[in-house]
């Protein structure tokens, strides 16, 4: 009887209309087809949901994400509760790639920035948009622009933080050497948002997949930057 008394209110709760709204994540529209398109040799894939608020050190990682992006996170669409989906691509038993996407607010709506990465090194294999509505969309989607990022890692972005300030002409700054597409004044905001999305994607992948292996580069770049500023 006691159990029934407990069960009834729970069932009544189930009857209530769902009025709670979850944070919006970024997933592939057709994972099976899209991943096969990216990795024709794929035999299977695995989808894993990651959410900072459900991770042990989530609060700390969320703070780190904000710091490493160097900008505030959107309180609505980049919240602590936002779910992320990591796709692991397999050929037989071998892990051949990682695919991950993030939402970033653009001028004309959300921009969905995806990357496919090498499973061991975290190098970008390809960078692409799933959704972008912008006057700059055409230019940003061009292969020639996107392919410049192939082979880069999060370390290159952290190094760029230093080079951009201390040695703007350095040849070692791979990110700095990337030629910006012709997006005009109207597309500048979305170009910046896309770069931010790419960086956010890499930072999150470092947290979710690579065990913060690029953290040392961030620390070093910040220290070097501080030293250079002190000089």
């Amino acid at each position: 009887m006691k159990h029934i008394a407990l069960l009834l209110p729970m069932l009544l709760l189930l009857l209530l209309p769902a009025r709670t709204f979850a944070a919006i994540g970024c997933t592939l529209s057709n994972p099976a087809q899209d991943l096969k398109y990216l990795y024709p040799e794929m035999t299977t894939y695995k989808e894993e949901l990651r959410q900072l608020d459900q991770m042990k050190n989530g609060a700390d990682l969320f703070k780190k994400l904000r710091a490493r992006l160097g900008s505030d996170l959107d309180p609505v669409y980049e919240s602590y509760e936002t779910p992320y989906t990591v796709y692991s691509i397999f050929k037989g038993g071998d892990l051949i790639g990682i695919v991950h996407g993030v939402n970033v607010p653009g001028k004309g709506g959300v921009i969905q920035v995806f990357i496919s990465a090498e499973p061991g090194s975290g190098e970008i294999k390809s960078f692409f948009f799933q959704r972008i509505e912008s006057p700059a969309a055409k230019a940003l989607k061009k292969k020639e622009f996107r392919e410049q990022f192939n082979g880069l890692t999060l370390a290159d972005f952290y190094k760029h933080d230093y080079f951009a300030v201390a040695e703007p002409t350095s040849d070692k700054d791979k990110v700095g050497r990337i030629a910006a597409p012709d997006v005009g004044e109207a597309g500048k905001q979305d170009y910046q948002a896309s770069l931010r999305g790419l960086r956010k994607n890499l930072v999150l992948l470092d947290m979710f997949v690579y065990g913060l292996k690029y953290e040392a580069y961030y620390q070093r770049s910040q220290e070097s930057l501080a030293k250079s500023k002190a000089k």
Partner: protein
Amino acid sequence: MNHITLASKNLLRRPVRSFLTVAGVSLAVAVAVSLGGFNLGYRQALDHSIERLGFQMMIMAKGCPYEAATMMLKGGTGLLYLPAEIYGTVKSDESILSITPIFVGVAAKEGSSIRDDEGTKSFSIISGIDTASFVTMKPWLQFKTGTGYDGGRWFSQDSTTEIVLGFEAAQYEQRKVGDTFYATVTPNGQTEAKTHEFKITGILDRTGTQDDGTVFMPLKNAQTIFGRPTDLTIIGIKLKKFGAVELREFEGRWLKIPEVQVVSLEQVKGTLVSLVGTAQVMIAAVAIIAVIVAVIGVVNTILMSVYERTGEIGVMKAIGAYRSDIFKLIWLETLAVCVTGGVLGCLMAIVGASLVEAAIRALINLGVQGSIVSITPGLVGGALIVSILLGFFAGLYPAWRAASMRPIEAIREGE
């Protein structure tokens, strides 16, 4: 040992058989309750959707009434237009309490695809409205508040750059107040699409209607960007006094205009109810058959149990059990099976309501928003009463057979 305890013990002696019989009853009850919930929920959702349209009738271009019904409720895309001057003419009708002109158009949006070779497209439904009269019709429209949404307001009527987003449109676009919104429109009679940039002045709270997925802009601007400056899609009307007679009189006055049709909410409701009515009758028939099959299963199981226990019943009678004791015992067993099945069936229906809803929505587009399966306490209570009644009737024959056995013959047969 009282009858209830004895009946329970008898059922537990053959747990698998008892479980399967109960499962049969519970499945039948679950199907019946889910169907009842759908019938109830669908009508409620329809009433809600129609009530939330804000107007009792609308004037629109002549066309298929089914299309008209869907367009009213879902903001469909097969759009027909009527001359805007009709609004000015109808407006003067003395029976009208309030009237609002609406222009609906479809704007292209970027779709979602990772492929370089694939240009997928999505779309947004744009509603050009006259804010003052539109809000009078829908006084429940409120602006969403909170981080990113505070300060929401309607656009000024002569603005060409301001829009208001419905709740779901904003969620899909991930837009907040003050953000930019792009809409690509191919104006009427032209082949080249033009992209327009708007500023979002407000995001509406959820209403559970088609307004949630709509982008609102000033009527004049919508007509201009779609290249139809003298067209309207719908004229929404609320009468001072609304009834069958008033509606007929109103129709009589305005159906003389050749290119329009007057569609009332009742007609829309009737159209949609008749659309799903046939399907509902068929499903109801299946549910009734399922219940009948379950009841036959119960009678069969209890009868088998009675025949298996012939000797035992004979001994019970021989040591002093009355006919009424045997009758009660078997009857209670049947009742227990039906009541347990009924309770489990109701629980299954309650827990599975969302699955049923998802399945129905996947199969047919009902043209309404909100929950379409409503399992109420009344429905559950009714199902339990029916289960009890079925138990009573299903138990009569096996109980009578058992009670009628002669002790000596029963003991001999049972050996």
